[in-house]
Structure formats: structure tokens, C-alpha cells
């Protein structure tokens, strides 16, 4: 293993939440650390750091990914959307409202990843039933709610969108 001092930094230029950013970072820096530490976007959380919990879920070039399993340098040239940008866009205002009224966020640690993941399902298939919802969020751990309220909130959002 080389010393980190020997390793030249790499420049990452990406569009994050609509804004162009550029930073020189170590190649080993994960995308979620880049977002949190370099850009101070701390809405994306870090749980397991090996792909299991989903707390770090962000959108890259239109699809959700694990921020802990992608290197920052791999996001060079990409469009990255974090929970901060997704919230501001208004895309999931209805989903967030339903999370609140249903108490689908308790400690809130899983919530940003859960919302990113649910947003993808709702965009593709607002009519998804409870089984599909559960399968879609199977990679996002919540240690508080027991999932029931989360599934309720996603289901209701989809139903309301379908009626519009």
C-alpha cells in the first residue's frame, strides 16, 4: 500500500444540487465523505460504509447510488443530487409531508436515504403496492419505526399522485 503522501490528489468537478463545484481530493475519498466534508452537505448520512444500510443514498446522473461505494473521483463530470437539493426542488414535498404526519421519521438517521430511495420508486411507479414498496426500500435500514409508517407514507404519496 502506498503512502498517502505519495499520491497526487485528483480534481473532481461535478454539479452538486445544481451548482458546479471543483475540489482536489485523495482518490480514496468516498463520494459521501466528499459531500459531507468538502461540501458540508451533511444530510447524507454514514452508517455501515459497506453498502448494507442505505443511509448514504444519493442520486448520481438521475439514479440512486450508495455514496459509500462510489469514489468521489468517479463523480467527476456527474450531476449529483443530495437530500438538500431534492428537498429544495420540491419534488418530494408531498412525501416529506406524509413522513411527518405518519411519524415515519423518528430519530431521522435513515430518513434522507429513505426519501432518496422512495423518490425513485414514486417517480417510476407511483402505483407501487406495499410489497413492491418493501422490496424497493429493502436496502435501507431503519432502527426506529418498524417500517410500517414508512411504507404507509410512501403508499399514500403514490396514491395521491395517481389521483392528480
Amino acid at each position, binding site marked *: *500500500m*502506498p503512502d498517502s503522501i505519495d499520491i497526487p490528489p485528483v480534481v473532481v468537478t461535478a454539479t452538486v444540487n445544481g451548482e458546479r463545484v471543483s475540489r482536489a481530493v485523495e*482518490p480514496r475519498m468516498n463520494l459521501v465523505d466528499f459531500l459531507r466534508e468538502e461540501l458540508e452537505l451533511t444530510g447524507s448520512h454514514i452508517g455501515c460504509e*459497506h*453498502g448494507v444500510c442505505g443511509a448514504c443514498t444519493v442520486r448520481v446522473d438521475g*439514479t440512486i447510488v450508495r455514496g459509500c*461505494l462510489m*469514489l468521489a473521483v468517479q463523480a467527476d463530470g456527474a450531476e449529483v443530487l443530495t437530500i438538500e437539493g431534492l428537498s429544495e426542488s420540491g419534488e418530494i414535498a408531498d412525501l416529506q409531508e406524509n413522513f411527518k404526519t405518519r411519524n415515519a421519521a423518528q430519530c431521522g438517521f435513515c430518513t434522507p436515504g429513505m426519501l432518496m430511495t422512495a423518490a425513485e420508486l414514486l417517480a417510476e411507479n407511483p402505483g407501487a403496492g406495499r410489497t413492491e414498496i*418493501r422490496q424497493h426500500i429493502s436496502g435501507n435500514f431503519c432502527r426506529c419505526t418498524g417500517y410500517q409508517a414508512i411504507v404507509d407514507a410512501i403508499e399514500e404519496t403514490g396514491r395521491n399522485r395517481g389521483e392528480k
Partner: protein
Amino acid sequence: MKPAPFNYAKPSSVDEAISLLDGDATLLAGGQSLVATLNMRLSAPDLLVDINGLEELSGISVDGGTVRIGALTRHRELERSEVIAAQAPLIAEAVPLIAHPAIRNRGTVGGSIAFADPAAELPACLLALDGAVEIAGSGGRRKVGAGEFFRGLYDTALEDGELITAIEVPAAAGNQRFAVEEVARRHGDYGMAGVMASVTVNGETVEAARLVYIAAGGTPMLAEGAGAALAGNAIDEASIGAAQSALEGDLDPFDDMNSTAATKLHLARVMTERALKRIAGA
């Protein structure tokens, strides 16, 4: 944990990627297995060679009865492909069971085949379909049949300095029936047991059956005894029972933190019955 330091290169051709592979270098495809092992410091290469820029490795095509899937094709692309649904229904049925959407968006076919986890779905599908792996190295390109490719636990026919460019499977024929049955603790987890079944029939009679089991040994496990028990017979209680009995000799599961070898063998038998009954009903 955070990875140990490494250098990073993003080649723009397969040849350039191969030329970067001498020394302590590792290929980075979807990163869905590799970056986890880097984060945990289970591996610490000097150089990562990121093949995500290599367009030539992406995409699905059909040519003269063969379906060719580029190594960089993401699991999610397979899941959504009409070509895969029509020509490789076994793969179409298996892919939604691989991990979770965010992981399927990044994970690749080549990475899954190269990693060769004995519980992974795509290696088992490749073997059930008797497909082949297309490999490029400094000496040129070669093709290795699935039966020779998977050698042992996380061990494949890939040599140092080589990369997978594509996999090939025969397009489904009208007299073939397929089924995937799997049990996992949670949707998307690696299965505790499962079978990818490809059965060729002549009317009611089985001509050949390739039943490949996950989490049942060091590699995806082709059950030859079970296949022989089915060949020449109709799928009924007797032939299903004979296939189930043969599994004890065919499979070699080991204990892990989820279940004992005995439980896995039991589950493999249950999966066999479910898959075969579904095939017989189709």
C-alpha cells in the same frame, strides 16, 4: 472504516486498461463489492483501474442465437431489458433478487462474474445456461466456458492482467423452461439457498436439466446427479423425489452465520421442488 491510500487511473480503451494491470492493480467496475472490501481494508491495492469509461464494454446484443452481454452492463439494465426478458428469461427472473435498487444501478455483470461469489445469482445463471466468458489480456482475447471458469471459492480462470469483456449465453429455445427459486433473510440479501433451473423438454419428457445451486459449495454448483435423475422422465412426484435425493451427492454446502450445511441442503431440496413444479405447470 476508510480505504488505505491508492492511485487511480481511468483508461479510455480496453488495451490501455490491460496495460495498466501489471503490478498491484485492481479493476474497478461497479464498485459494489470492491469498494466495500477497500473500506474494510480487506484489500489495499496500489492502483485502481476504473473501467467505467469504456463504452465498448456496455450493452446487450443478440447474434445468431447468442445473447452477448457487455461486462459493464449494470444489473439494472438487465432488469429493464426487453431482449433479456425475451431471450434470457432465466437472467430476467434472477436479477431483481440481486441486492437493492441503489446497488443494482451500479453493479455490473462483469464484476459479478469476476467476483464469483458462490451465493451470487449471475454466476449461477451463466452456468445453468452453459454460457461463456469472454476475456481480454495482453495476449489477445479468449473464451472460457462457464463450467471451466468457476474454479473454487472466489477463484476463477481469470489470470493476472486479464479482464472480462462480455458474457455470452444461448438465446432461449422454444422447448426450454426456466425457473429461479431462492430464500433470503431479507429481499435483496445474498440467498441462503436457491436454484437457477434450465430444463429442456420434449413434450412432457425432460431431455436435459441443468439445475445450478447458489450457496451450496465453493462455486455455483451444477447438480449432475439431479439432472440425470430427471433426464428421460416426466416431471412428477417420483422424478422430483429422485432429483432431491441426488442433491446430497451433488452439493457441498458449508455452515455460515445464517444457517448450517444441513439447513442449506434441506432448503435446496425445497427450492428444487418449487422450481420443478413451476416448470411442469408452465
